[in-house]
């Protein structure tokens, strides 16, 4: 069992956990992910490593409760643990001194963009970060992001905090005003956000890197469930990625593939909520 040492509730549906897994912490680099599994009956799900402490032998995971597995994860407390934490998987982010770079984090994607922004800053880049969420409650790590960025733009879709805008709006303005300066853009967030970031940067021909979070089973190059279509053919996110050139990704195919198990996911959530309800009633009675 991989023990949870710390838990923070970042919002109603966003949780942070510090997990003891020295063999992963020892190797983890920005851009990599782990496969986690709660227990015997659970799925294997990929989560990007939001932070790591080699000395303490811990990694930090941040997840949003969007399905049954993440909802169940949200109920775990310090002292509980995961049955599986395997990794670090995937290629690390290619950190170099590029010049001026933009890091875009949307929703729970703020978590994985943080170590990338930090590493880019440490490598001597001028880092402009844009973080955004649907609403104020879903934002987190603003101060952390500010600490590793030369400029930080915060926005919410509903205007409840920061600027009322989608992340693509300030991004477009930056490209318009300083397009020639910007050497590279990183974007991590919901697939639909990454698609629109890609469409935004494409006319300016600014190299854009996205970190894809597809459905995976083993996460180690065996099942092929994570395959994504690029201009040059199918690639496996787990071993070829998770970062790809955004301008080469077939976004519509990616978005369609994420929907394949929607009925089953809904059924699982319904069952989970029903069980939780029964538990509550039992506790009361």
């Amino acid at each position, binding site marked *: 069992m991989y023990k949870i040492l710390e838990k923070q509730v970042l919002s109603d549906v966003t949780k942070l956990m510090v997990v003891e897994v020295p063999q992963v912490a020892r190797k983890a680099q920005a851009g990599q992910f782990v496969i986690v599994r709660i227990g015997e009956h659970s799925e294997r799900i990929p989560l990007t490593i939001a932070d790591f402490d080699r000395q303490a032998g811990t990694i930090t995971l941040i997840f949003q409760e969007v399905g049954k597995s993440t909802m169940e994860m949200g109920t775990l407390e310090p002292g509980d643990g995961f049955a599986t934490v395997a990794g670090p998987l995937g290629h690390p982010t290619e950190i170099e001194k590029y010049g001026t770079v933009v890091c875009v984090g949307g929703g729970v994607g703020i978590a994985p963009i943080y170590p990338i922004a930090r590493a880019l800053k440490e490598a001597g880049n001028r880092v402009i970060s844009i973080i955004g969420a649907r609403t104020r409650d879903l934002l987190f790590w603003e101060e952390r992001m500010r600490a590793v960025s030369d400029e930080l733009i915060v926005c919410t879709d509903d205007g409840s905090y920061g600027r009322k805008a989608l992340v693509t709006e300030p991004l477009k303005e930056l490209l318009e005003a300083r397009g020639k300066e910007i050497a590279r853009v990183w974007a991590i967030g919901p697939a639909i956000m990454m698609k629109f970031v890609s469409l935004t940067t494409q006319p300016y021909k600014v190299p854009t890197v996205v970190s894809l979070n597809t459905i995976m089973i083993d996460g180690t190059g*065996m*099942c092929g469930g994570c395959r994504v279509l690029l201009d040059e053919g199918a690639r496996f996110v787990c071993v070829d990625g998770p970062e790809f050139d955004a301008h080469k990704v077939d976004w519509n195919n990616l978005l369609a593939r994420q929907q394949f198990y929607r009925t089953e996911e809904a059924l699982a959530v319904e069952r989970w909520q029903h069980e939780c309800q029964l538990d509550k009633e039992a506790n009361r009675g």
Partner: protein
Amino acid sequence: MASLTQKERTRIPRQEMPAQDPVVRGGNFNEVALGFTAELAQQEADRCLQCARPHCVEGCPVGVLIPQFIRALREGDMEGAVRAMKVKNGLPAICGRVCPQEVQCEARCVLGRKGEPVAIGRLERFVGDYELAARSCPLEAHPLTGKRVAIVGTGPAGLTCAVDLGREGHRVTMFESLHTPGGVLIYGIPEFRLPKSVVRGEIDYAVECLGIEIHTDYVVGRTLTLSELLAEYDAVFLGTGAGLPSFMRIPGINYNGVLSANEFLTRVNLMKGYLFPEYDTPVKVGRAVAVIGAGNVAMDAARCSLRLQRLQAQKTGEPAGEVHIVYRRSHEEVPARAEEVHHAEEEGVIFDFLTNPVEIYGDERGNVRGMRCIRMQLGEPDASGRRSPVPIPGSEFDMAVDTVIFALGTSPNPLVFVDAEGLQRTKHGTVVADEQTGRTTQPRVWAGGDVVTGAATVVSAMGAGKRAAADMHRFLMGESTGW
């Protein structure tokens, strides 16, 4: 019965193994073949002629002492049978179920020249199952040698290698990337062909007897690299098995409903998707499934699809649908084990021979709605000696399918090669290793199984693990130096 003459022995018919009824089993994931009873095993053992020069042994990749274990069975000495079995094979309950005996030991049996060979595989399974319950003859290890060995991958190659080295007194540590040891025995081969309790039973028994350590959730190449293992261990064996699944280079392979047999079987077997929603990982098949390929993996995928369809139909009351095996060659070239093909046919899998997909169609939501195929004919023999299939111009036709499962083999996992510069690979991406010894181009590293041969059988991987273990032992004991 010891008084039977040779002639009388040859007159005993080959004993059939009881099996679940095809109609009933199509709706469940329980084991199909039920195993010999003691009486059937005795009858079958009585058929063995105890040849002075037994050819059956030559046909076995791990050289099981076949006449000896059958002789003990004949004499009612179960422990003797187990002892004889374990000289060469530490995992008989597994081999008895998944080896292609008809092309190995049984193909060489003298009885097969005029009639039917001794059912060696079924007897092996009988002995293995007995021992899993009785634990009468635990594997014993020689005194510790002080040498430490790392084995990467806990599938058939790695397990066999681990057992043999453990018996020699070496300290064995195994690394598994998934959360359960067993490799393809767990994620690939379905419950109805190889119950997971049997796999777990065999592994637990061997590991306990020999003090083998298993680290799950260790992805070699990421969590640890080969260089790091070499710094810590005296020798390393790579048995990482199959890797990235192959897809055809045709349009439409990324529609929803197109998946690799690896993904499909992993969802079903490792993750127990057939028990969704009790287990969290979903698996779904449509009403018309096409499995592309005709190897053992294709049969497993087809038979799992059929069961999922029927389980679904039991819930909804709708008709179950159909499952096709689409294969570009003919029945004669089918590479799967005979029993699997037979079972698949019995259960109602439809075989479309001399047929090859050329395109997969999708609907506006990105789901598969059909597959265009072309008819094939057999032409000249190719490099493999099989007549190569050639498309018949103008013979294209459409199949209305909503699920397409590719079972076309795999190419080795690229992660093994991370931080392993000394390891040479073939143009197919497999590890270069000596066939007899398993030695790779990197000193102190051996390899065997699918990572060397590409997709093959469980028992050939076991054979490779065994040969490598023998060479590793010689090397570790200083009997064979140099590289």
